């Protein structure tokens, strides 16, 4: 490790840390503002609210029908996590173990939905879903959310599967296991940590996935983040504190899963959608 001890280097380090500090302080203050406001009786023109209350939570709960919204959210997420797990892990296994013509093209096909922002492919996708009548339904929302999550699971799982010794599978084959038995008794236990990590990442990303859900959701298939958007969009109709209470409920939902996810994955994995392609 090289240590620079000149004054300039120290000033530079101080400036860098000050920038980081400024960013983190503003970020945390922003979150604190939402939490404070959700517990405030009246908060106008002062540092802190005039009084504290929890009634915004019960009013937000009934006003925004949060029970229904939460149920829909968890059902959507459950379906997305399950289906992307099944489709993603099987496809990743084939891609990790076999070389066949057209494999590169296929990997590119799975890479594209992760590189292209959801707003760009979401609009044509929503149009197709509206024309088939799927949009606005539960399965329409699930289908739209699966578009980036299936490739995500595939690209996270490929390197994970590649590191498992194929001799183990060969041994299972020798003892007469068919493909299904091989999956259930040999591969699944070995792959569990990787699958768990990939699915937790899918879960965290799906809770916050706004654009795709927004474009295809109908009144009965809104997830929490879309409901929050509409509440903020129509600000003025409801009390600010009520919207903030809903935002806190959303934050808690997300953060609980983030904390669980962070026990199993590296935070950088949430950002880099998959193992970064080497820069060639």
């Amino acid at each position, binding site marked *: 490790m090289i240590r620079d001890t000149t004054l300039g280097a120290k000033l530079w380090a101080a400036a860098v840390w000050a920038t*980081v500090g400024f960013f983190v302080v503003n970020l945390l203050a922003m979150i604190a503002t939402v939490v404070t406001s959700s517990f405030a009786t009246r908060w106008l023109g002062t540092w802190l609210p005039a009084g504290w209350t929890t009634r915004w939570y019960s009013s937000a709960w009934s006003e925004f029908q949060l029970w229904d919204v939460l149920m829909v959210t968890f059902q959507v997420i459950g379906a997305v996590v399950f289906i992307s797990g099944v489709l993603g892990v099987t496809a990743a296994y084939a891609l990790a173990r076999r070389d066949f013509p057209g494999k590169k093209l296929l990997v590119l096909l799975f890479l594209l939905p992760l590189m292209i922002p959801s707003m760009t492919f979401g609009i044509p996708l929503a149009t197709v879903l509206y024309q088939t009548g799927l949009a606005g339904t539960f399965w329409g929302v699930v289908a739209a959310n699966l578009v980036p999550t299936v490739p995500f699971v595939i690209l996270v799982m490929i390197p994970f599967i590649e590191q498992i010794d194929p001799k183990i599978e060969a041994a299972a084959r020798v003892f007469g296991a068919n493909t299904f038995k091989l999956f259930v008794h040999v591969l699944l236990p070995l792959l569990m940590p990787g699958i768990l990590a990939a699915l937790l990442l899918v879960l965290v990303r799906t809770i916050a996935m706004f654009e795709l859900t927004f474009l295809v959701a109908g009144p009965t298939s809104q997830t929490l983040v879309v409901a929050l958007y509409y509440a903020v969009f129509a600000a003025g109709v409801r009390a600010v504190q009520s919207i903030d209470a809903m935002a806190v409920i959303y934050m808690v939902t997300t953060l609980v899963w983030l904390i669980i996810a962070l026990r199993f994955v590296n935070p950088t994995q949430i950002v880099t959608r998959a193992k970064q392609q080497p820069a060639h």
Partner: protein
Amino acid sequence: MDVLAHAPAVEQGPSLRQRLAAKGFDAVTLLVVPAAVFSLLLFVYPFAFGFVLSFEPKGGGEWLSNYRRFFSDPFLYETIAKTLWLAIPVTLLNLLLAIPIAFRVRLMRHQRLLTTILVLPITLGTVLVAEGLLNYLGPQGWFNRTLMTLGLISQPLKLVHNYWGVFASLLITGFPFTFLLTLSYVTGIDPALEQAAATLGASAWQRFRHVYLPLLMPGLAITFCLSFVQAFSVFPSAVLLGEPAGPTRVISIAAAQAAFEEYDYSMGAAIAMIMGVVQLAIVVAVLASRGLFYRGPASGAKG
């Protein structure tokens, strides 16, 4: 199975099944089919459908009329400039901030706390950040209040419902993304290379300029592309924190309005295609310029 029924063909050589297996097609390869079909149905087909639809204007007329309308109506074509005017400065600022910070954080032993804090705005998502910033940066918010207490300003700054609101939200959600990507590239470079340069007497700036920067350039180009593409498709914060009818009427607002408010799916698809083309053009330009820089291993393995 009925392929095997063609007995003569089988007797002459390996069966079709064996020949396919030799090329890599067997039962295991077929496991990729469900995901591939799914991707074709929900990703490729909608794109192709949207592409074709964009040439079939809703009100009839000739095939290019959607695009002609887009490029003749200032309310529509100006969205490209407005979006670029937001996305490019934010992406460059994020990248310029991320590089020195990544170089500093790389030396840290406990990176996890910082990376966890930085991952917060990404997991919370753009909608929550927009909602939080509306309160925080508003005229009564803590940000303006602090500046006024410090005596830096006398009037609250107008930071929401304009360009700067969207800028701030793109900074808060975009910086962590850019930073963590940059960090992964910076840590991928073998520190031995820097030590070698230091041994030969290179100053900190020289080590950065002549050792790290050339090695980092390809990674930075990819980081720029990914961050730019995210910023270019900004939607919720441009509506909630900006002026969706004025300076922050970004291209995704125009597309969503055309498709889902005017029910002109054809026009919506056309705008989405234009959006994709602009993104692609910038990404291709950046990646093409990568060819000007060093390409090769950065792990510095001994020969």
